């Protein structure tokens, strides 16, 4: 079995963080947060994206230094300034993004990371230790295999072995099941139970309720950088209450658009899109979107939203299924053809696939109509018209700091988004796909973006709003669906949707 437990410590607090605050660029990511895990338990740390759960654990492992707060190990206040110091104190963390050198073998990676600390001097020794530790804890892996030839689950095993070989007794796993299949996840969760049974303290960072209820002893919930529920035993726990704690009270929407659905404008049937790593991003998804409605797609990020948006505009190829735009099949059509049909897009990363940062405001605005409105005899640009239109757009959309000649990158986030909106929400718009349209924007810019979307829909356009911001989904949509693992797992009219309902769907299927 796993390394000998220390019986007299059983049940005592292994790691505790008190009153931890941390700001990045003036934004408070942790606000007086606290957390404690005991020896011999699996402790779930639950929260939405950006709740601060990874951050507080990164403070515990010395990746970040907290602005204020105390870290205690076994009740003794300890300063941890780097991951190496943390590992000397027996704290090990398996990050969401593995820290392995892909072309090295497993043994080489172990030697690189754990060599001096674990007293390993050469590759043979490292290989022997991997094999020995692996069979001891039940994580078999071939020490001579190259990491790039391993599956994601196997790479995770290497990371866990690395942490254990370094002597970790407090093991932190950051969303370990996010990358695993159901079966792999179950076996990993069983493994964490084994670790706890042999006296380790295990922290399971997650946003899945199922893992909290079935596989952990206690749970701490974080929201917006604060600890909202601490040290709660998971036996007899009310799931709905937990979901409400995690998601919190949402601000009521200011103005709700009345749905007046017209004819179907965008019809998606049985759409499947592959992810870059070969998995299915979108998996047999169907939806119908009519003029005059906003269909909000809620869901935890990474459940296929990006692939869906890319496939709708034509950046990603569907491996199966069909898309109809205004009654015409477009699944094989080019981006230009889809735009010609009135499809418009606000991508989640406005400078990656929306605007060209180093080109001017006027050029960015003209980009989508180069063949028509802005072309003159023999392919020369109608520069005067470009400039006039840009000036008009700057005034109408109130884009601060913009001139037609200014480079788009120099605009602030909100104003860059306005620029993009003014281009996409034009007179030919029939269907708008908005993917996290207010990500990173301040309140005022958010209001503007939301207003522009609602205005265009009131004028008859259809909008597909994909967002992991529940508040945005709830306040804008006329109809709401939840996306999980590449499909829609539930759908309501907006007035029947509540944060609790959506939260439960998002987490149970995530």
């Amino acid at each position, binding site marked *: 079995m796993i390394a000998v437990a220390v019986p007299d410590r059983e049940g005592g607090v292994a790691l505790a963080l008190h009153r931890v605050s941390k700001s990045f660029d003036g934004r408070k990511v942790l606000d007086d947060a606290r957390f404690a895990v005991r020896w011999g338990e699996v402790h779930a740390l639950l929260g939405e994206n950006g709740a601060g759960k990874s951050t507080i654990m990164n403070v515990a492992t010395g*990746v970040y*230094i907290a602005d204020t707060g105390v870290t205690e190990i076994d009740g003794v206040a300890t300063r941890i300034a780097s*991951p190496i110091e943390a590992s000397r104190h027996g704290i090990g963390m398996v990050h969401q993004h593995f*820290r392995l*050198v*892909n072309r090295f073998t497993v043994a080489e990676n172990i030697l*690189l990371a754990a060599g001096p600390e674990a007293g390993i*001097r*050469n*590759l043979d020794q490292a290989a022997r230790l991997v094999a020995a530790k692996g069979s001891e804890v039940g994580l078999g892996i071939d020490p001579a295999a190259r990491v790039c030839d391993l599956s994601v689950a196997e790479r995770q095993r290497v990371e866990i072995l690395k942490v254990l070989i370094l002597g970790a007794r407090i093991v932190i796993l950051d969303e370990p099941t996010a990358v695993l299949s159901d079966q792999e996840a179950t076996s990993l969760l069983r493994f964490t139970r084994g670790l706890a049974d042999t006296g380790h303290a295990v922290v399971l960072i997650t946003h899945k309720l199922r893992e909290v209820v079935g596989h952990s002893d206690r749970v701490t919930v974080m929201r917006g950088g604060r600890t909202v529920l601490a040290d709660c035993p998971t036996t007899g726990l009310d799931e709905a209450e937990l979901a409400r704690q995690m998601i919190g009270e949402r601000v009521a929407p200011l103005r709700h658009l009345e749905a007046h659905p017209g004819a179907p404008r965008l019809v998606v049937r049985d759409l499947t899109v592959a992810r870059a790593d070969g998995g299915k991003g979108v998996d047999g998804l169907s939806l119908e979107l009519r003029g005059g409605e906003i269909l909000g797609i809620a869901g935890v990020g990474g459940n296929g939203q990006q692939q869906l948006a890319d496939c709708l505009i034509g950046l990603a190829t569907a491996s199966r299924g069909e898309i109809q735009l205004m009654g015409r099949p477009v699944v094989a059509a080019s981006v230009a053809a889809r735009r010609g049909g009135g499809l418009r897009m606000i991508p989640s990363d406005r400078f990656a696939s929306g605007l060209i940062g180093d080109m001017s405001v006027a050029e960015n605005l003209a980009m989508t109509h180069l063949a028509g409105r802005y072309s003159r005899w023999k392919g020369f640009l109608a520069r005067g018209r470009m400039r006039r239109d840009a000036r008009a757009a700057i005034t109408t959309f109130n884009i601060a700091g913009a001139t037609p000649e200014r480079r788009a990158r120099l605009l602030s986030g909100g104003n860059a988004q306005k620029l993009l909106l003014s281009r996409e929400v034009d007179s030919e718009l029939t269907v708008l796909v908005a993917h996290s349209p207010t990500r990173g924007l301040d309140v005022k810019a958010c209001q503007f973006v939301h207003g522009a979307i609602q205005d265009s829909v009131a004028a008859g356009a259809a909008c597909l709003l994909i967002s992991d911001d529940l508040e945005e989904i709830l306040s804008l949509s006329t109809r709401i669906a939840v996306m999980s693992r590449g499909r829609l797992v539930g759908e309501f009219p907006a007035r029947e949707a509540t944060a609790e309902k959506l939260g439960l769907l998002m987490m149970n299927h995530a």
Partner: protein
Amino acid sequence: MTEFLVTWLAGTPSYAMPLLLASLGLILSERAGVLNLSAEGIMAVGAMTAAVTTLLMGHPWLGLLAGAGAGIALSAVFGLAVVVFRVDQILAGLATVAIGIGITGVIGRPYVHQTVTGIDPVQLPVLSAIPVIGPVLFHQDPLFYLAVVLALMASWMLARTRFGLRWRAVGEDPAAADIAGVDVQVTQLLAVLASGALCGLAGGYLSVVSSQVWVEGMVAGRGWIAIGLVIFVRWSPVRAIFGALLFGGASALTPRLLATGANVPVYLMMMLPYLLTIAVLAIPAMFKLGRGPEPENLGTVYLRQDRR
């Protein structure tokens, strides 16, 4: 014909050595993730410094040492720019070439065309008496043996030692290396300095061993060929020995063929090594041969994203 072959093959190593030394240096630097395009300039400085030192001190070994030292000094400038100040590696490399060639003109001009005391080949007893193989393999200058030993040592260091493992980790995935406690910047600086020493030595070999005279511009593109050679041998020090001999053989062919009085256009012959460079680089790309162990992080600057 046998005589032609023997003189040709026996002449090959002296053409191959500068390429081998320089490409070894570049391999060391690139395996740590630093794309070092400055070889041409560093070789120029090495050649000039080695020749001038030998002229002033009268000792060729001292000259070679000075050449390597000058290489280290110039590559320290490059390393500082790239590793510490995070200047674009391609730009910094090209600028270093310009600096190196400029310096040689300024300092070396008074010493042009003066004959330098050189280093002569050594005949290994018994072995050099073997027909054909003897003169080709065992009647060479000491640096030939040194370079081969260096290549084997570099290969062993990279593949078999913990030091080498860290070195390669920096070139493959600096973030993972950083987490594992490897000092990425120190490793890359070390790699750049090592490549400077070897490129400087390669330059010194040109002036003190093969030509025994210094002329401006005598490196004549060998630094660039070495850069191509590194890709051709897929970043392997041992393969670099054979790659360098292949390229050296092509260069050595030119004077031999001219000496036979064969009616081949001179300029075409002199183009041979460069054509060969293009050809060997194009062929793997054309036939989509495996990418081999090209360091994954070659040429990108590592910025620690720790947001402290």
